[in-house]
């Protein structure tokens, strides 16, 4: 009796378990198909620029086919930097869904600096937050910037479409594509308060600094080295969307792990001779190159610790070392003097570390050894190392 019972129980349990397994398998398949579906087809179209009627046609055709469409548009950021222009809004995203499928059309706009920009998918007050699972969309959580890809035509499912010639490059850009706009409004307020310096010298400096920055960016890009606007150049971007005319140099930051030994040669070949080299790769490296018209290019190398980043400074006369500490940051794209460049995404923290809470007030006398709130003494280079860590040209 008990044996029969045991067998019956066993059989029952096996049955239940198998039934449950089947159910689970079915359910899991469902889940998988959704997940895979999201990864399918990432075709990129070719139209760059904006022809309102053409877009509207697309929209209307989709709606006539039974799609439910959502259109996200906003002000044109290309007009934002210009005194009080307001144009017709430009389309940023179209999302059209039919039953359980959705098409997300991201409109890439071309911007100054040979790059493409797409906008933030920002829902207006009354729109349906459940229209599609917005978080699953690959584009739109933040605005993004991409190198302008060369496109070529391919046939997918019998349809002629354009895709980037180098699809891997485009795909690799996606996770690091976050873009932040310059704070044009605040910059205007700044200039209302402090007036822009339009003297011939200021304009000449801006021009040289811009050319130097463009040359540096080109050189570093060739080497495949990431860099960002640092110190005064970063402050100029953040505070006034321009180069600070009395800053006298261009400052860039590079992570030490991106350092390459041929960097000095590359700059020299580009017509920028090394002016001085402080520190060494393991500690407090800093390079300065001499640009045209007495404009200097300073490259600070950043070292990462568990809870902060820092870069070093060296006083040539005394061999004293300094350390400039920054809270950890990541890199975002922005547009600066007609270029797509990196800045720390956590810009305000970065700037306040370097310039304090009063960064909004222009200061013309700045002592790099004492003025920054984040500077701290970091010992002295041993005299035996001076030949290596203090090189002046």
């Amino acid at each position, binding site marked *: 009796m008990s*044996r029969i019972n*045991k*067998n019956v*129980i*066993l059989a029952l*349990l*096996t049955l239940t*378990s198998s039934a*449950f*397994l089947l*159910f*689970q*398998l079915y*359910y*899991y398949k*469902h*889940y998988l198909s*959704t997940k*895979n*579906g*999201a990864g*399918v*087809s990432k*075709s*990129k*179209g070719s*139209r760059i*620029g904006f022809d309102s009627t053409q877009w509207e046609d697309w929209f209307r055709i989709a709606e006539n086919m039974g799609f439910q469409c959502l259109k996200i548009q906003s002000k044109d950021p290309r*007009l934002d930097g*210009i*005194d*009080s*222009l307001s*144009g*017709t809004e430009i389309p940023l995203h179209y999302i059209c869904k039919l039953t359980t*499928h*959705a*098409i*997300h*059309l991201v*409109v*890439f706009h*071309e*911007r100054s600096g040979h790059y493409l920009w797409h906008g933030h998918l920002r*829902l*207006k007050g009354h729109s349906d*937050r*459940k229209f*599609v*699972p*917005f*978080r*699953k*969309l*690959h*584009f739109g*959580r933040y605005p993004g910037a991409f190198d302008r890809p060369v496109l070529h035509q391919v046939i997918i499912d019998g349809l002629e479409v354009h895709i980037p010639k180098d699809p891997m490059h485009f795909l690799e850009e996606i996770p690091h594509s976050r873009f932040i706009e310059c704070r044009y409004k605040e910059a205007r307020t700044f200039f209302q308060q402090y007036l822009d310096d*339009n003297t011939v010298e200021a*304009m000449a400096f801006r021009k040289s600094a811009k050319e130097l920055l463009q040359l540096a960016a080109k050189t570093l890009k060739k080497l495949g080295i990431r860099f960002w606007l640092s110190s005064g150049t970063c402050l100029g971007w953040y505070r006034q969307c321009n180069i600070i005319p009395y800053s006298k140099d261009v400052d860039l930051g590079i992570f030490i792990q991106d350092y390459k030994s041929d960097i000095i040669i590359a700059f020299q070949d580009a017509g920028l001779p090394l002016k001085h080299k402080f520190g060494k790769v393991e500690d407090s490296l800093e390079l300065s190159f001499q640009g045209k018209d007495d404009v200097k290019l300073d490259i600070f190398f950043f070292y990462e610790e568990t809870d902060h980043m820092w870069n070093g400074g060296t006083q040539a006369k005394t061999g004293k070392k300094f350390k400039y500490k920054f809270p950890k940051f990541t890199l975002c794209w922005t547009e600066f003097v*007609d270029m797509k460049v990196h800045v720390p995404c956590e810009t305000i923290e970065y700037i306040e570390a370097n310039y304090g809470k009063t960064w909004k007030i222009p200061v013309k006398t700045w002592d790099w050894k004492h003025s920054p709130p984040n500077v701290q003494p970091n010992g002295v280079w041993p005299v035996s190392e001076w030949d290596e860590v203090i090189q002046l040209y």
Partner: protein
Amino acid sequence: MARRFLKPWAGRDNGDPRNPAWTTGRPAPSSSPLGLGRSGAGILPTGAVLFLLVTVIVNIKLILDTRRAISEANEDSEPEQDYDDPLGRLEPPHRRGRGPQRVLDVEVYSSRSKVYVAVDGTTVLEDEAREQGRGIHVIVLNQATGHVMAKRVFDTYSPHEDEAMVLFLNMVAPGRVLICTIKDEGSFHLKDTAKALLRSLGSQAGPALGWRDTWAFVGRKGGPVLGEKHSKSPALSSWGDPVLLKTDVPLSSAEEAECHWADTELNRRRRRFCSKVEGYGSVCSCKDPTPIEFSPDPLPDNKVLNVPVAVIAGNRPNYLYRMLRSLLSAQGVSPQMITVFIDGYYEEPMDVVALFGLRGIQHTPISIKNARVSQHYKASLTATFNLFPEARFAVVLEEDLDIAVDFFSFLSQSIHLLEEDDSLYCISAWNDQGYEHTAEDPALLYRVETMPGLGWVLRRSLYKEELEPKWPTPEKLWDWDMWMRMPEQRRGRECIIPDVSRSYHFGIVGLNMNGYFHEAYFKKHKFNTVPGVQLRNVDSLKKEAYEVEIHRLLSEAETLDHSKNPCEDSFLPDTEGRTYVAFIQMEKEDDFTTWTQLAKCLHIWDLDVRGNHRGLWRLFRKKNHFLVVGVPASPYSVKKPPSVTPIFLEPPPKEEGAPGAAEQT
């Protein structure tokens, strides 16, 4: 752009605890191990136990996976903060005049020093400024909505204004509500045609208006009159009493107010436009509306297809309308490259831009007068190069220009010069000296040291690297074009112009413009109307080649009889197709004394020097090419035969009350 496909997410919102996976999933792992200890001997039970074990393990794994899926799905249903618009955009306020109300309450006031019109308590016209706004004010209301569709003032105290009024009133569609009121004086030059038109509108007093009468009128175009008040002036030295007309205007249905055009995208634009504004003639005609889309022939091998076109505009919507029509009719135009920049938040120019389906950008005015125009130019040019970051050139136009049918063809054939020749500053469609009697050859181009503007091409590098950084700031009341002509900016570079202009300046009302001035300097300008003109010898316009060309011309030119008066018609023989040269006195590079006098008697631009190239001017007289060389300043003086004495013309003694500052554009 990128397209992404999302496969079904329908099964994904499993955060819901009612989901069976959740409820049945839990007991499975805890109940199964119970059976394990009790399993007895025998192959069958052992197999069953093993099977059970496997299913349980797979089940647990699946449950874990599913739970992960669920938690991800839960994330989805969190409020989509990143996607929220922090501003909570406001709906634009609706315009007054909608709603169930079917009657408008209209007030019209006419007096010596003030007029006003109020519709449903909202003042739509108020003018009590001294010394302006004299004449008949006309307002057109939409008969279905009560919106103001047009507002005009015709100074019928002055000549010809009544003709403009007749033209305007004839253009207003039947059924519209017309409101008229006089400020100060409106009868002195109100001629019979105009009076007859007022009579046809049903007005009693209009046809009999007298000196300094006051008058207020409300009526429907095509009848009936809805109210009229009139007060006669008792004497020449005094005005009629102020009159205040209060009347109700019944609104008609929207159906009646609109035309029944076929439902197309174009007509939707037309309908939107025609229900808002009046005074554009047949574009809003119900029966036979004039087209708003033009399909000019494409230009073969169009080199300027991707060059952005910036149209600089103010608040002259009728001008803009005329300008855009001619622009969109030009061969080789690409509408998506056009941007209209409007200086100020004016609605009507924006409506005109929308009618043609173009991009319009409004600009908050900065500064005043000429500096305002200058700031508007700067913002527009910067925006153009921002909107088209890959463009190396931009075409700059203004709202008061007619564009020649071969405007783009002209540019397409010549634009490579701007790329290949650093000594060029611009290409312009306008020849300052190209009047009906002084321009002849549409295939001919010149190099000139002055910058004419009025339809021109700007190089990106010139703008971004040189002009933009030092553009005059708002506090400097400079004309942008005068500034561009200064030696510091032009730096010895020249512009390419055609002999026969490819643009025509029709603006009479403008910041620096008035009727007299237009008549004297612009009206008789020659304008090319021949399509597809093949330009001659374009490469001979390059710096060195042009010198060769000039020397060739001078060598074959016949020297005119310098004993004759150059202002006399007989100075040039009655021939055709010959080349003549005259030598005038020009002591230094900037000595234009004789040239200015010569220009005056030739009836060409004489307000400042234009169209010169190293002390040489080229124009046509009586179908002959006519060269003028300034001696000895011009390097071409060497071509002067020793026997010829350069002509000297004395400037007249300075007069008081000469016409004021000139329009420079």
